């Protein structure tokens, strides 16, 4: 350690911004690599790529994020466009080629034949193989505003004729397209997960950091708070708190309120991780060295300690998102979270609450499949990052 006279030398600092002062300590572990040549980030990335499950998860996750960014364009319709003639219409199978007389490429679905029960007014659908609804890419359909800014009516996929409807994943009780609703729900559910985690990240980092770095009485107090929050059943507590959100609040207000509620209870895991890392790093030689070199607390934390566990934090963040998504889904499912004009996976599942609707229209459960997929891939990616960030594996 005494052989580090390069403290005032700026090139040294700019050459290894990622490994930070941890470099002298961590480099011998990255055997074979010349000192300072391979930043930690690249090493983590190399290890991450080795896990096939994590890479696959990352790809699906990217797709989900793309879907939530471009939902308006990707959805065949809009979530509110309804068609009273098509209540509980079953999913239509997409055909890619017509082989009836020779090969005729082109996407189409078969139309329905609707029979209405005169008493219950319930529609019974049978596939009508004689009528086809041609399906095209980049078709014009329901008008929308991309991100509320750019007006357009081009949809990635949809019925070629704007007057016809296509229900690839079926329709709900108002004849609204489930595919579109799930796609719009992706945006709300994923964003509430990300926003909630961002908020609990701030809370967890600050409180966990304080707890771990200062130790002593502060640590004890914060630990008691965390233990308290972890020991109460979260779902009833969340239900109680979100029931207190006034019903006459607008959708944006409710959205913010629910996000805040979720993160107020959800920061504990993150704080524990951060505290644990701080506690173990505090004893490390390079931190002592930095302190002896006269670095201030802020510099030790920001420049020397943080970089060495950034990837752990990323892993914990990734693992926290599914937790938020599940919580939002549960609350909204009970009618205590987001409220109907807003479309989230949980709100959509409200429709599937009783056995009568799911018995007739099991496709109403599809938003639940979306939840499972999202949670699964986030877990894969989080596990992958965590394993990749661990230098001892």
């Amino acid at each position, binding site marked *: 350690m005494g052989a580090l006279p390069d403290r005032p030398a700026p090139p040294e600092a700019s050459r290894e911004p990622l490994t930070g002062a941890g470099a002298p300590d961590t480099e011998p572990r990255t055997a074979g690599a010349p000192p300072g040549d391979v930043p930690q980030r690249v090493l983590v990335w190399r290890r991450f790529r080795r896990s096939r499950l994590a890479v696959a998860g990352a790809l699906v996750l990217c797709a989900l994020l793309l879907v939530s960014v471009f939902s308006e364009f990707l959805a065949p319709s809009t979530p509110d466009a309804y068609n009273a003639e098509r209540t509980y219409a079953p999913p239509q199978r997409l055909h890619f080629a017509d082989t009836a007389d020779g090969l005729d490429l082109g996407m189409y679905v078969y139309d329905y034949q609707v029979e209405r029960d005169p008493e219950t007014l319930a529609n019974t659908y049978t596939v009508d193989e004689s009528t086809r609804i041609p399906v095209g890419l980049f078709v014009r359909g329901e008008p929308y505003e991309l991100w509320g800014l750019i007006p357009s009516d081009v949809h990635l996929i949809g019925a070629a004729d704007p007057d016809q409807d296509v229900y690839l994943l079926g329709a709900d009780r108002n004849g609204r397209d489930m595919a579109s609703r799930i796609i719009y729900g992706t945006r709300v559910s994923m964003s509430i997960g990300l926003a909630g985690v961002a908020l609990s990240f701030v809370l967890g980092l600050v409180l966990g950091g304080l707890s771990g770095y200062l130790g002593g009485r502060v640590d004890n107090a914060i630990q008691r708070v965390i233990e308290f929050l*972890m*020991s109460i*059943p979260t779902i*009833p507590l969340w239900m*109680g708190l979100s029931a207190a959100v006034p019903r006459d609040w607008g959708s944006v207000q409710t959205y913010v309120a629910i996000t805040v509620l979720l993160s107020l209870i959800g920061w504990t895991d993150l704080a524990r991780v951060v505290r644990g890392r701080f506690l173990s790093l505090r004893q490390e030689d390079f931190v002592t060295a930095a302190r002896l070199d006269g670095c201030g607390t802020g510099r030790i934390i920001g420049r020397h300690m943080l970089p060495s566990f950034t990837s752990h934090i990323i892993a914990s963040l990734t693992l926290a998102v599914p937790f938020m998504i599940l919580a939002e889904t549960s609350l909204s499912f009970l009618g205590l979270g987001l409220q109907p004009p807003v479309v989230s996976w949980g709100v959509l599942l409200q429709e599937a609450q009783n056995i009568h609707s799911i018995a007739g229209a099991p496709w109403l459960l599809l938003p639940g499949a979306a939840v499972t997929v999202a*949670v699964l891939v986030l877990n894969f990616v989080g596990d992958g990052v965590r394993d990749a960030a661990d230098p001892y594996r």
Partner: protein
Amino acid sequence: MLHYVIRRVLYMIPTLFAISIVAFLVIQLPPGDYLTAYIAELSAQGQGVDSAQIRALEERYGLDDPFFVQYWNWVCGIVLDGDFGQSFQYNREVSGLMWDRIGLTLALAVVTLLLSWAIAFPFGVYSAVRQYSLGDYAVTFVGFVGLATPNFMLALIFAWVSYRYFGESVGGFVSREYADAAWNLGKVLDVLSNLWIPVLIIGTAGTAALIRVLRANLLDELRKPYVTTARAKGLPEWRVVLKYPVRMSLSPFISTIGWILPTLVGGEVMVSIVLSLETTGPLLVEALRNQDMYLAGSFILVLGVLTVVGTLLSDLLLAWWDPRIRHHHVERV
């Protein structure tokens, strides 16, 4: 050991205090108070509002008093008289409505916990001992899916499958033919036969988590030199595994009760709503929707207290199981 028990019980007091504050906060948060809601309820039913009754209620709950006085009265009423307040929706004492439901919830949570253990133990040990085998992959995959699927989704899927393929709709603990019957062997068996489904559904996430913890711990233990030593000395393989490494890796297994209980209670609430079981879940949601706040707050209080007591029990169990914790006061993992 006694020292540890006392310390642990003392730690519990601030937690209980905080839980009661939060529960009372939940009661107080909605705009308006209990009485305005009650009066609105009465007038909605077309009943005249009896001013004497209102004055009596006002006095009883001290609605003009500051927050902490009201809180103090509420807690004193609970601790001294077991009086949790009044449910204006049912116009009954909260305590009369609550205990049956809480008992069922508790029974469900305990049975679920036992079942999770019973399932997680063999599967966890198997998938650690036969790491990377086909069975291990299968267990891991099922575990991941179990963790990722919300409990109530499983309940919905189950309800749909049983409706679609068995033609019966699920729900309730007691079958129709036993609904009014007195308790006898037939009814008990009937309840048991209805119980295993919700138990299985509620337990999925917890069981999956337990399997993963056990597997990870056991893998760490199995790599240690003492295992090689035991094997080299000629112990049969099942003894090598079961005698020491499994015992070592069971400690975190016990300590997980602490965080599994809150999950179980939460999951139970959700699943009961879907399967319409007569536990706390449906009543709690209903109370929250109707802002029947004393009922809701009391539920949250009692569920929270029960969870904390459960965590205490699990910590004591852990101390009994693992002498290292007992003697060195190691923080639980």
